[in-house]
């Protein structure tokens, strides 16, 4: 493993995003609102594309430590970065035409860029300090983004709840890091692992691990640490929800995997059980609570909690297979969630209020393409072929069975059975033949958001038909983490 003292090319993607955000803030003030909106969107799209290119160019480079071992630039972290940047790209498109964007385009887009930068930094962090800094960077951006629509009480409420709970989570993480440092004298993961090898059941260390898992669990919406999720997801402007649900989760799960696998390999028996417990709790809480929701965003929020169960199952497998399954699942998960929220965003603008399940009644007869896309997303979330959600579930189940965690797979199956009841409610409403509604006027941004939904739907199908390339990338990434 090579160590590069300082390598700015290694963090080129983050630099691109931060520079773009700064440029927006500097030049945005000189522009009129409509011009600023167009400028901000173009710069943001460009920055995400640039970041993706920067990752792609360095994809085949060997993994290396950088910045005094505080970063570990490898395919595992960079793969997560790719998902985050693509999610940002799609979320930017979904946001086009949002009413409140008229005055706040510059702020919105620069926060989005900085938040995405924080996420990709989090994914390559190799030290508790960088983890904390990156986490705060993305969190603070997200707190503001959630509360962005300040005319909406729900948006403010969601932002406040997210802020308070998020701060508690960050504090716990920091405390856990301090305990680990107290026990091992190291903050870098590889250093921690070297020292921790000898002290299997040191109370300070174990307490530290527990607090780190809890602190990061908040961001991954693992039950019972998920309580901010429904309010923040419901209150946040829909494009922000789309971005958060996909990208934050990716960063959080990647960093959880990295911390546990690289810093605490010898304590794996312990944290595997903790993750299994969190996974089962997420399965139960997420899916049961989603059953009772009528608001679509709230329902999808609880469904993301349920999906955390699958993702944690893959992490708990603690194997190259598990990491590969995790990355594939995250790619699929990001595509289907952003797509689903894009459809919700379109519908929300059409009816001008929060979308209930019944607002989709008969939608197939006025917007057939969007409806087919929505059906594809729901099937994929439920894991039914021919959608990529099926392959993702199969991969996670295989990894779980391989690591003797078949019981977690069975829990996942039971969770999915419950989940089917609410996932299928939307297709059933969409094709309801008794409830044909007059066609609503397309609102501004209709075309772009529909395009995003369509692209995501095609991605979900394409990932099923030709999953090879993504599995190859996931393999590279998982190898870069586990070696071998």
């Amino acid at each position: 493993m090579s160590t590069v003292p300082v390598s700015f090319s290694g963090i080129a993607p983050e630099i691109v995003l931060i520079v773009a955000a700064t440029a927006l803030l500097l030049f945005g003030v000189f522009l009129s609102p409509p011009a600023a909106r167009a400028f901000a969107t173009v710069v943001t799209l460009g920055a995400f594309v640039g970041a993706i290119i920067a990752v792609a160019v360095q994809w085949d480079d060997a993994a290396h430590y950088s910045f005094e071992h505080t970063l570990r630039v490898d395919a595992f972290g960079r793969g997560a970065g790719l998902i985050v940047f693509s999610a940002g790209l799609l979320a930017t498109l979904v946001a086009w035409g949002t009413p409140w964007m008229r005055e706040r385009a510059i702020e919105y887009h620069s926060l989005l860029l900085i938040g995405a930068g924080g996420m990709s930094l989090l994914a390559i962090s190799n030290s508790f300090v960088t983890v904390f800094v990156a986490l705060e960077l993305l969190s603070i951006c997200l707190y503001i983004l959630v509360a962005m629509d300040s005319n909406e009480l729900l948006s403010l409420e969601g932002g406040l709840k997210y802020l308070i709970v998020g701060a508690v989570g960050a504090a716990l993480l920091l405390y856990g890091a301090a305990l680990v440092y107290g026990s091992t004298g190291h903050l870098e993961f590889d250093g921690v692992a070297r020292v921790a090898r000898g002290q299997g059941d040191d109370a300070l260390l174990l307490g530290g691990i527990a607090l780190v898992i809890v602190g990061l669990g908040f961001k991954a919406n693992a039950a019972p640490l998920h309580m901010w999720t429904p309010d923040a997801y419901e209150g946040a402007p829909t494009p922000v929800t789309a971005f958060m649900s996909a990208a934050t989760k990716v960063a959080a799960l990647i960093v959880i995997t990295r911390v546990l696998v690289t810093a605490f390999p010898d304590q794996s028996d312990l944290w595997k059980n903790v993750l299994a417990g969190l996974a089962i709790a997420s399965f139960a809480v997420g899916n049961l609570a989603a059953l009772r929701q009528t608001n679509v965003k709230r329902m999808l929020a609880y469904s993301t909690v349920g999906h955390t169960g699958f993702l944690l199952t893959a992490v708990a497998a603690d194997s190259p297979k598990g990491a590969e399954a995790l990355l594939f699942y995250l790619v699929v998960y990001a595509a289907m969630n952003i797509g689903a929220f894009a459809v919700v965003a379109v519908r929300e603008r059409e009816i001008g209020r929060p979308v209930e399940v019944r607002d989709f009644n008969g939608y197939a007869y006025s917007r057939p393409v969007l409806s087919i896309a929505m059906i594809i997303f729901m099937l994929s979330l439920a894991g039914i072929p021919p959608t990529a959600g099926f392959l993702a579930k199969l991969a996670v189940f295989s990894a779980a069975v391989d690591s003797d965690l078949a019981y977690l797979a069975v829990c996942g199956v039971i969770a999915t059975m419950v989940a089917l009841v609410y996932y299928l409610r939307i297709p059933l409403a969409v094709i309801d033949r008794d409830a044909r509604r007059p066609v609503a006027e397309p609102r501004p941004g209709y075309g772009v958001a529909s395009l995003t939904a369509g692209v995501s739907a095609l991605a979900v199908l394409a990932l099923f038909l030709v999953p090879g390339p993504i599995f190859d990338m996931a393999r590279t990434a998982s190898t870069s983490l586990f070696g071998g």
Partner: protein
Amino acid sequence: MTTALILLPLIAGLIVGLVPLERRMTEGLALLAALVECALGVVSLIQFDADKGTQFVTDKVWITDFLGIADVRFHVGMGGLSLFMVLLTAVGVAAAAATASWVGRERPRIYFALLLGLECALVLLFTARDIVLFYVGWEAMMIPLYVLIAVWGGEQRRRATLTFFIYTLIGSLLMLVAVAWVGIHGNSFQIDVLTGAGLDSTWPFLAFCAAFCIKAPLFPLHGWLPITYRQAAPETTALLSGVISKAGAYGLITIAIPLFAPNAVDLRWWFVGLALAGLLYGSLIAFRQPDARGVVAYSSLGQMNLIVIGIFASLPTMVGSSIAGPVVHANDNGITGAKFQMVNHGLVSLAAFLLIGLIELRCGTDAFKYLGGLANGRPVISTVFLITALFALAVPGSAVFVSELYILIGAFQFQALVGAAAACAIVLAAMYMLRWYSALVHEGDGPNVSPQTPDLRLGELGIAVPLVLILLVLSAYPFGVMERLGGFG
């Protein structure tokens, strides 16, 4: 050839669904595609060599080295049972498409696209030689079915859809874990490799069986059946009962039992016992149903359980015999009969439900108390119904009689008491089918039957007569099918 059989309905479905043609064109195109599929099936039948195993194979990598376990492959091909199941699917979908265009279903473009999509998924599952691919076909067929029931169903279609879905998906999700288990422990996803892998574990076997037995359905997993068969459109019910229920039996024969032979042998008494209970229960309940669909639905339950008896009664003697081996010899009567009965019952049920659909079209109901007297001045209806009823009650000389006889012989060889009990149930079949026939066709005119109620028209004959003709051909030469069917696997 197999790939063509899979892709033709898919491509035709996409064209029908996406190209805005007028109704007549859409229906014509869909029907044409369904008939071409039948023709392709017949060509395969002619080219099929009974002495070889799986034929018309296509084998391509789909996912290289899935999670480091093994390749997931697009591996399809047809053995004897697959071939006949594909033919049954093609015939069933063609008959359903003909019925739908005769009735003039609303929104024909999406309707026929879904019907053809369903056909694609069914052919895929009947020909898949890779277990992941099989699962894809198995689950993918649910999506068109879901929409077909939810949009074109009767009054309580919402409840029917949810009940059907939750039941069947519980089974198939358990199967998904079992597929992962099989891949990990057998180090392959190819069904042929896994058959020889010596897998031996009870819960994955039961997980597979859960999926297959819910779909069949095996007693007592039939809770979805009554409401679904009543609420779906007649042609959808015909496909459910005629073709899709056979997918369950097909899965038992091709996957669950060959992969987990020791477990299947251990648990065979449970399956035979439940199936026997289901056979008697279904046959008795069928006799008490107040509507035509109810009778055929419960009779279908009974018949599928009879098939399960035939399958499990052949254990343990059949396990290990290869697919390519000689077919009809002393100890595989049960399985041979079960396979042949899958074909026969498929055709009978298709005919019965489609005919009920034509009655519903005339009289607006299938409840016996509003019907009766259809024979008066309507000779064609009474003839076609009589022939169908005679096939359903396995009149000697019919193909159904041959297959039921084989199953009964198998059951007697397995255990004389099982054979005796199953034989009683066959008598019940005569009772409920004759009641069905006479309540519809005999007696005085029911409230919904008037002298103006038309006889079957020429177009409607075009739907029913081919099915009856196929049954007659099978009756005349049953061994033509049976020698091609093979054993387990």
